[in-house]
């Protein structure tokens, strides 16, 4: 019996297929696009008409090329960040703009946890968006003096705890390390930073609340949070991929999960020779909904944490240069091994010195073992100079830029880290596009909120949270930005043959929007509501925000 054909109709279909950019109808069969066209072209087709999107605008399902499954894990906990987010169950969770609001939300969570000894864990706190206000143990003691309370900053590098948890960790006025700062009265403020402080925190708790095995509910929340934003393919771009994690992923990525997931093996979890063997085994376990095969390497830290490696003149405020997470000579070796084995690499470089090291490593690997169409991708690559971008192009690399930084940390880059000139070219998508570099843009969720339309808005407007425009010359057009969150990102994941555009033979993965992103003012791009998504022909609705 022939499979049933569904004919979706829309007000407009933006296909991202250059030979057929616009359409109104899509015929879907067996989870794939049969054909795309206009009403007249489907006359006589034996199909079930689906007109529920007839007044909507359909785009290819968005592809988030750089996020982390921790987005799903953290939603077990209490969000206390400054920006509005949507939790995986569809609730709009308003951002909190002062310490009092943070305390109130944590207190509400405290009342909902039955076990009086259970840790209360807040995440996403960012003092930069609260006018620099600090959270102290006294604030968290207003939440509870009898239950351990901790709050992770958005950076994930700093934690604030209440007095009880300080006591459990053994910190008091006699503690003498930089990672446990003091209040004017000599007692610890409750802010903890660095491995020594964190070790005591976890020892005091008796476990590490930031690790632990992934479970199916985490993956489900990750998928649900992505679906709300119109995403149909998402990378989990740094994962140890233990056997347990792979088993959880295998069980979770089945019919009913609204996204396809692309986990990247963390290079740091094993020597590259072992990594090559593991990728070989994992690739054989890939399915339409779960695709293994890529490897992530982290070269340096973050710009706002002053741990990114910068070329001269370094940090604008004079802070010392950041940290290598892998030495350049090790990077050469690791890149060389994976490259020679035909594996695609995603290389995190924030500072331009790290970018330079990555470019050198790929150049050496290409000379040693020339490989067409390797598609190694520099991830974040926020401070690349124009000369480096020309090398990116020459070496056949792709870029996935962290455009959300423009909004969330753009002011800090302008005032503190980079200064006005270099901040103007942070995440230089305009230059990348002019040079013809394959380009994607990303959220790095949970570091910033998931939302490809928001990310596109950042790249199009380059507006910081204070309203300053950083480097208008580096803006993308709306069309370029939408390409970057669909086919561009699919290309960086080596999935442009099956997702990222709407054309015959590809997966029937769509984002259904309430308005046409080309018709709304570009300043409103982020506000276009996502109405639904379609994955492999199956419709997943989005509850109203």
């Amino acid at each position: 019996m022939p499979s049933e054909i569904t004919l979706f109709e829309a007000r407009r279909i933006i296909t991202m297929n250059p030979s057929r950019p616009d359409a109104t109808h899509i015929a879907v069969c067996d989870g794939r696009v049969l054909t795309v066209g206009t009403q007249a072209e489907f006359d006589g087709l034996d199909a079930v008409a689906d007109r529920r999107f007839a007044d909507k605008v359909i785009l290819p399902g968005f592809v988030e090329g750089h996020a982390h499954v921790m987005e799903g894990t953290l939603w077990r906990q209490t969000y206390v960040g400054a920006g509005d987010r949507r939790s995986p169950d569809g609730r709009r969770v308003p951002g909190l703009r002062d310490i009092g609001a943070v305390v109130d939300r944590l207190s509400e969570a405290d009342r909902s946890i039955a076990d009086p000894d259970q840790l209360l864990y807040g995440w996403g706190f960012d003092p930069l968006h609260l006018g620099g206000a600090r959270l102290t143990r006294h604030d968290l003691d207003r939440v509870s003096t009898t239950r351990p309370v901790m709050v992770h900053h958005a950076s994930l590098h700093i934690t604030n705890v209440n007095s009880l948890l300080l006591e459990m960790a053994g910190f008091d006025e006699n503690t003498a390390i930089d990672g446990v700062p003091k209040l004017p009265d000599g007692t610890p403020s409750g802010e903890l930073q660095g491995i020594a402080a964190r070790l005591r925190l976890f020892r005091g708790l008796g476990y590490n609340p930031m690790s632990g095995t992934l479970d199916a509910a985490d993956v489900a929340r990750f998928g649900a949070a992505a679906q709300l934003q119109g995403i149909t393919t998402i990378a989990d771009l740094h994962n140890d991929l233990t056997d347990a994690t792979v088993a959880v992923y295998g069980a979770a990525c089945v019919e009913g999960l609204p996204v396809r997931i692309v986990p990247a093996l963390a290079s740091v979890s094993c020597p590259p020779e072992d990594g090559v063997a593991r990728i070989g085994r994992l690739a054989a376990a890939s399915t339409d909904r779960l695709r293994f095969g890529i490897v992530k390497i982290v070269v340096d830290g973050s710009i706002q944490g002053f741990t990114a490696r910068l070329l001269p003149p370094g940090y604008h405020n004079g802070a010392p240069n950041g940290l290598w997470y892998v030495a350049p000579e090790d990077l050469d070796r690791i890149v060389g091994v994976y490259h020679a084995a035909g594996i695609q690499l995603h290389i995190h470089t924030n500072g331009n010195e790290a970018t330079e090291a990555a470019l050198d490593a790929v150049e050496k690997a290409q000379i040693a073992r020339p490989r067409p169409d390797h598609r190694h991708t520099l991830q974040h690559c926020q401070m690349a100079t124009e000369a480096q971008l020309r090398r990116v192009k020459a070496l056949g690399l792709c870029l996935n830029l962290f455009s959300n930084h423009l909004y969330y940390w753009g002011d800090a880059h302008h005032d503190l880290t980079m200064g006005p000139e270099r901040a103007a070219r942070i995440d230089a998508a305009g230059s990348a596009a002019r040079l013809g570099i394959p380009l994607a843009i990303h959220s790095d969720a949970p570091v910033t909120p998931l939302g490809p339309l928001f990310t596109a808005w950042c790249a199009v407007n380059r507006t910081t949270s204070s309203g300053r425009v950083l480097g208008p010359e580096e803006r993308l057009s709306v069309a370029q930005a939408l390409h970057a969150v669909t086919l561009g990102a699919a290309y960086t994941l080596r999935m442009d043959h099956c997702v990222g555009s709407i054309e015959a033979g590809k997966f029937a993965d769509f984002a259904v929007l309430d308005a046409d992103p080309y018709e709304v003012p570009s300043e409103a791009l982020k506000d276009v509501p996502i109405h639904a998504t379609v994955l492999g022909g199956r419709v997943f609705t989005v509850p109203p925000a």
Partner: protein
Amino acid sequence: MRRRLPAPATRCPLTVVGGFLGAGKTTLLNRLLAGSHGRYAVLVNDFGAINVDAGLIQDHDGQTLRLTNGCVCCSLADGFLDTLMRVLAEPEPFDHIVIEASGVGDPGAIAEIALVEPGLVLRGVVVLADAERLPGLAADPRLGDTLARQIRAADLLVLNKRDLVDEAGRAAARATLAALAPGIPVVETVAAALPAAFFDLGGAGPDRAWRGSTRLRAEAVPHEEAFQRLLYRRTGAFDRVALERALTAMPAALLRLKGRLGLADRPGMHLLQMVGRRWSLSPLPEPAPDAAELVGIAATDPGIGPALAGLLDAALRPPHIPHGDRTRCA
């Protein structure tokens, strides 16, 4: 709810081994694991490079290697804190924990753990440097700051691969170390061959009750002729302030000093542990026999025995009756 961790019964010594890629950290740790006479936990980055005699391996599960001599070697690939928490939670405490910093890591940040973890006491930060590459690395604009951070964290510097440089190269490497970390003792090695007694300086376990053994194991370690062993025995007790002054002034050729001694203003015996520039005194659960007995390891230098004895004698309070051999090189 439990508010505090129970106070540890004993404090386990922590040694941090740092140094840039290729400086010889793994060679040193392989040597330590194979030759150890205590229950060591050794946490390493490159688990695959750990190479001990197959006959020593009791159990190997891919992340943890258990040796027949009681040592355990753990991979840090699972996450630094999770691995260390597992080691600290082992039911049978270790005699010594050794953590290898990564080739670009800051050993000082790891050493800070012992300042806040009551179950640990910092024995010292040992940082290795490749004699041949050191001057070039220090001048490298991409790597110089990382290298400097590591070297400045050291209590003891190991200038390794001494055989790969001529006298001029050696002088250049030593000048680089002196510029980055003035006054920190430097020991020169080939193939990271610290004296076998460097970690196990007498006694069954480093911080177990001192057993008074003055006979140090003489092992067939190549290039050990570059080192000498020292023995210092006296009756009497030390003035604490004067002793601290003496320890701060120790000759740079002294790498290691350990022993038991009495303090004039405190009851009971105390254990002195010194690695390079770092020393600690901790009370021992035994009565004071009013005698001091210290053993040390130093780079070969004929003047060091008398120098050490002179400094310590100046801090010793009567009865000051030297007996037996004064200082001697084993």
